[in-house]
């Protein structure tokens, strides 16, 4: 038994089996939750590459799986990331049962996770782009369930993700083709540009992000939230792995400056557009752009504290998006429009969902006492110390996003003239209350939660030596 079999092949095969069981939604959902939780526990408890004795049974979990002459390798360095990703999956799959998502959500969700972990595990790393593309293709049925029209947002999602793949493969060919010292020095900056364009297309970086608000507006929010939680986080980790493995990239101060400026630009534009947004579903798209902007900002610091803040910020990012999309899913399940013209009385009909929605958006904005605040504060402090002239622009983006959230708040608290019936189910409230509690717990006791997630940086060990 090898680690890639456990964390890549088993989810993939289970996903295929669950597709056959898709009509029994509770069963397939339950299996997906149990498997994800089990794989998270195994990743936390079972060391890779050592002999384990369980009673009289001796098990050795190998690191590599060879396929067509190439290897998929998972080491102990990847275990913290596996714990995080499968815990996230267990939560999202459990939520999908309660929030009554479509039948293809869990089967394809497992397959997407399998492809993304395969991308992190494959050696040489230039093949990762192909597996990310497979994950993108597998996420299409999650975003567009049968019976619904595939609108322009999803089409553009597929186009932009597909356009990104060749750039990464070409850059991977340059950086992965043996000793970097023997490569023509003029080629390396060009390869870095290709790499940058590829990741910009994948991560929906400015100016390639206009499809993102369209996607969140035109698809089911919970499905979009799942895909937009897993995909960018995995791609960011892949990017860190890439930087970690290529010394030339690590030493390129221009590249880190570009990453940082791109992050700033994303925060500003997402914040400004969010301030003028009249549709909450589209605000979800801007929230994703805003979060990615902060992720790039912290990576661009190219320092250990910066990388640590990046790793720590993944938890509030994932939690914020989960609570936000769960709240939106509760509203959308009851055919509640989410544009500003139709929000009167929504608080009376969906009180917990509205509170969860507002708190999630406040958390993403970085309001004190909520999950996003500690990491936003740290990121801003670090950035201000490094680039004091640019901090004002980042704060402007923050202010814009906050104005967008305040506008949402002003519209959702408008009461209907006639008292409306509460339309939330108790199970939905449990999910939302759970999310709200964790939003506060993460915000009040950040050290407890964030210190453990920092270990995911082991995926890119060379970065841990950054000053």
């Amino acid at each position: 038994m090898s680690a890639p079999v456990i964390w890549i092949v088993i989810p993939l095969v289970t996903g295929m089996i669950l597709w056959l069981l898709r009509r029994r939604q509770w069963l397939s959902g339950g299996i997906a939750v149990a498997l994800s939780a089990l794989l998270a526990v195994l990743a936390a408890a079972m060391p890779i590459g050592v002999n384990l004795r369980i009673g009289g049974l001796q098990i050795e979990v190998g690191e590599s799986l060879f396929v067509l002459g190439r290897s998929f390798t998972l080491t102990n360095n990847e275990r913290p990331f596996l714990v995080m990703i499968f815990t996230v999956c267990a939560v999202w799959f459990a939520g999908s049962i309660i929030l009554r998502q479509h039948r293809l959500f869990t089967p394809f969700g497992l397959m997407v996770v399998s492809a993304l972990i395969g991308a992190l595990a494959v050696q040489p790393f230039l093949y990762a782009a192909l597996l990310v593309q497979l994950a993108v293709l597998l996420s299409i049925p999650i975003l567009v369930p049968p019976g619904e029209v595939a609108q322009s947002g999803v089409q553009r999602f597929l186009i932009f993700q597909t356009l990104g793949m060749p750039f990464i493969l070409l850059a991977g060919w340059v950086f992965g083709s043996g000793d970097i010292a023997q490569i023509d020095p003029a080629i390396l900056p060009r390869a870095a540009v290709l790499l940058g364009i590829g990741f910009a297309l994948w991560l929906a970086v400015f100016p390639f992000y206009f499809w993102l608000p369209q996607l969140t507006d035109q698809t089911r929010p919970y499905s979009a939230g799942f895909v937009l939680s897993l995909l960018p986080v995995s791609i960011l980790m892949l990017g860190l792995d890439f930087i970690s493995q290529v010394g030339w990239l690590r030493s390129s101060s221009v590249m880190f400056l570009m990453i940082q400026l791109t992050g700033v630009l994303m925060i500003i534009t997402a914040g400004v557009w969010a301030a003028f947004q009249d549709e909450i579903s589209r605000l979800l798209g801007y929230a994703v752009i805003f979060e990615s902007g902060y992720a790039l900002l912290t990576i661009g610091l190219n320092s250990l504290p910066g990388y640590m803040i990046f790793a720590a910020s993944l938890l509030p990012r994932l939690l914020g998006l989960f609570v936000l999309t769960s709240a939106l899913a509760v509203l959308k399940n009851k055919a509640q429009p989410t544009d500003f013209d139709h929000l009167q009385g929504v608080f009376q009909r969906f009180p917990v969902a509205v509170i969860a929605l507002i708190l999630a958006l406040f958390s993403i904005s970085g309001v004190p006492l909520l999950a996003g605040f500690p990491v936003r504060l740290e990121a801003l402090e670090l950035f201000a110390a490094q680039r004091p002239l640019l901090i004002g622009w980042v704060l402007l983006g923050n202010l814009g996003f906050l104005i967008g959230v305040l506008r949402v708040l002003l519209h959702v608290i408008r009461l209907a003239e006639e008292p409306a019936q509460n339309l939330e189910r108790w199970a939905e409230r449990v999910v939302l209350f759970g999310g709200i509690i964790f939003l506060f717990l993460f915000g009040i006791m950040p050290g407890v939660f964030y210190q453990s997630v920092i270990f995911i940086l082991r995926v890119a060990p060379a970065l841990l030596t950054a000053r």
Partner: protein
Amino acid sequence: MSLQSIPVLLLILSSFFLILFLGWRYALLALIVQYVGVFWLIAQTLPIGLAAVKLIIGWMAGAILASSQISLGEDLPVSDLSGRIFRVFVVIFGVIVAFSILPAAEAWIPVERSLLSGGLILLISGLIQLGLTSNPFRLSIGLLTFLAGFEMIYSGLVSSVLVVGLLGLINLGVGVAGSYFILSSSLEEAA
């Protein structure tokens, strides 16, 4: 004119057809010709078996898309005369761009000239198709064209069985995704 110019001409011809004529029959025919050109050029660098994989998968993806379009039973939107004139000029412009960036691309990417020129033509043709349509069928054909162009260039750089297999899977995936886009609204309700 050398023998290697023939597949490049086939690719230019197929690009003209794909961009100019919007019916599914023309598109399928052009796609068939396109993948013959791709196979011809790729067979110079990859073993013939691996090159044949690209040919067959390309045809399969085209067939999946065409059959989905037939199942839908709706005609594709047609272009009027002014639209066609515009498209002709766009394709001519695209081909000129492909050949004008060829010397710069050669300095970057060490692959054979015919492979690179064919690849660039398809890359640009794919991008033009993606830019001119929002129809799922046309969009998928555009993505397949773009990917075929990239695969031609990449096959001159990397000749791994795993890469060929995964790219084949992606091509097929794009075909299936396109088919799903075409038919998703007419499929059974999910929940």
